[in-house]
């Protein structure tokens, strides 16, 4: 790599402080530029697709509780180990039943791996981001709180919640056959592989 140095100042430039003047001209120009400040409580940030905010467990319309099947994938994948699940086996039906589902949101790093790995799309990081509290207990989410969070999010979205699909529920660059049935969602065209910038591994597989 060749380093391009600035040419050395000549005497006239030194006397006239040409470089300082350049800087001064720049700051003067910025004085009339539009400030980029967002006046936060009045002006909310624009929330983009794939925003990762407060945790929620999707409330299943039919059963009225969460969709979680206690597969423990989210617990396994979580890099900060903030998800804790207790479950027992239901002998009669031959399935797992969730006893408790806790997320320590204060430890969470909001990577979104849990919602990506969930086979039944039970977990979601919603678009709600204002949930600061005065004590730790308020930000420790148990199953009830997580379901309530989903209700709050549904209220916020209004009717749009019915067709709501989180981008992380349908991971990009994975063939349809490798996904669980619940994750084979119909997503808008711009989310699919053609319109995306993808890595070499994905390109090779296509």
């Amino acid at each position, binding site marked *: 790599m060749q380093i391009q140095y600035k040419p050395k100042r000549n005497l006239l430039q030194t006397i006239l402080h040409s470089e*300082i003047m350049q*800087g*001064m001209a*720049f*700051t*003067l120009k*910025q*004085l*009339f*530029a*539009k*400030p*980029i*400040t967002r*006046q936060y409580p009045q002006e909310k940030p624009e929330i983009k697709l794939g925003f990762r905010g407060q945790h929620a467990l999707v409330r299943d319309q039919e059963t009225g509780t969460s969709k979680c099947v206690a597969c423990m994938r989210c617990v396994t994948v979580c890099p900060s180990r903030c998800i804790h699940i207790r479950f027992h086996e239901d002998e009669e039906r031959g399935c797992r039943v969730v006893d408790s589902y806790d997320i320590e949101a204060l430890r969470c790093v909001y990577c979104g791996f849990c919602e990506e790995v969930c086979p039944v799309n039970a977990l979601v990081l919603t678009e709600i981001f204002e949930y600061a509290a005065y004590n730790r207990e308020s930000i420790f989410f148990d199953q009830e709180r997580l379901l309530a969070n989903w209700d709050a999010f549904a209220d916020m979205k209004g009717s749009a919640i019915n067709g709501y699909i989180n981008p992380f529920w349908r991971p990009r660059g994975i063939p349809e056959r490798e996904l669980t049935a619940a994750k084979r969602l119909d997503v808008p065209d711009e989310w699919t592989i053609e319109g995306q910038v993808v890595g070499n591994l994905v390109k090779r597989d296509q």
Partner: protein
Amino acid sequence: MHVLILFIEILILFAIIMLHVAYATYFERKIIGHMQVRMGPMRVGWHGLLQPIADGIKSFFKEDVVPEQADVVTFRAAPIICLTAMLTSLAVIPFAKGWVLANINVGLLFIFAMSSLASYGVILAGWASNSKYTFLGGLRSMAQVISYEVAMGLSLVGVMMLSGTLNLTKIVEAQGGSFGGMYIFPQIIAFFVFFIAMLAETNRVPFDLPEAETELVSGYCTEYSGMRYAIFFMAEYIGMMVMSSIGTICFLGGWNGPFEVTIFPPFWFVVKVYAFMFVFIWIRATLPRYRYDQLMSIGWKVLIPLALGNIVLTGFIKAFTG
């Protein structure tokens, strides 16, 4: 009766200057904010207009901490010395024709004396706080003021030679009302030296080594809190205003302007002082701090020879043209 009128005049001047100081901080924060593509204070009042008042009330009611190991008497006296010296120099500044508290014949010298005295406040503050940072800040301030006082004094000698007086009112009158009469044109070198020495004298960026918040926490006022800290800041801003006034009087023709503003005679004076203040702030928003040895070498190796050369040059021109 005369004393009473003088006293009232002093009170009025004091109140106006304090108001200007308060709003100079607002002016500075707004301009630096916008230069950095931010907004500056926006919350208190419309566009943050009441911010200086809120700051004043806050610092007034804050706890006044005196460090245990400090030299208490000196510690308490230091900010007062700073502020008093700066305020005293306001007495000789002519804001308009006849608008001066003390029209003394050594006005310029008096201002030099007072601005040197203010640096005693800084040095004593540094010494009395009994802390490393304040001590370093105080030492730096001492070195800086000693070296730049010389350059500044010498730069104004040219002005004294041209006008033949130290009386600030007479200096303005010697320049006359015309645009070409301003001493900035015959004394451009002196103005350059004066300007840089002025920045160093008021401890402003790029010569704010006594404060140097990136290395010395807050320099000489590290151990101060509450109102005493605020007093140092008032002194700094009054110092800026005094220096801007000196620049206006000696180089830019004082209260004379393109046309007379009869309802408010100091109009052009205020405009020019605020132009100077704007440049102060503009420089602060742009430049980084000089290194300590660079500061010293600029002062002794560049500014003082330049100022001396300017005196010789002015002397020659004055001798040959009469």
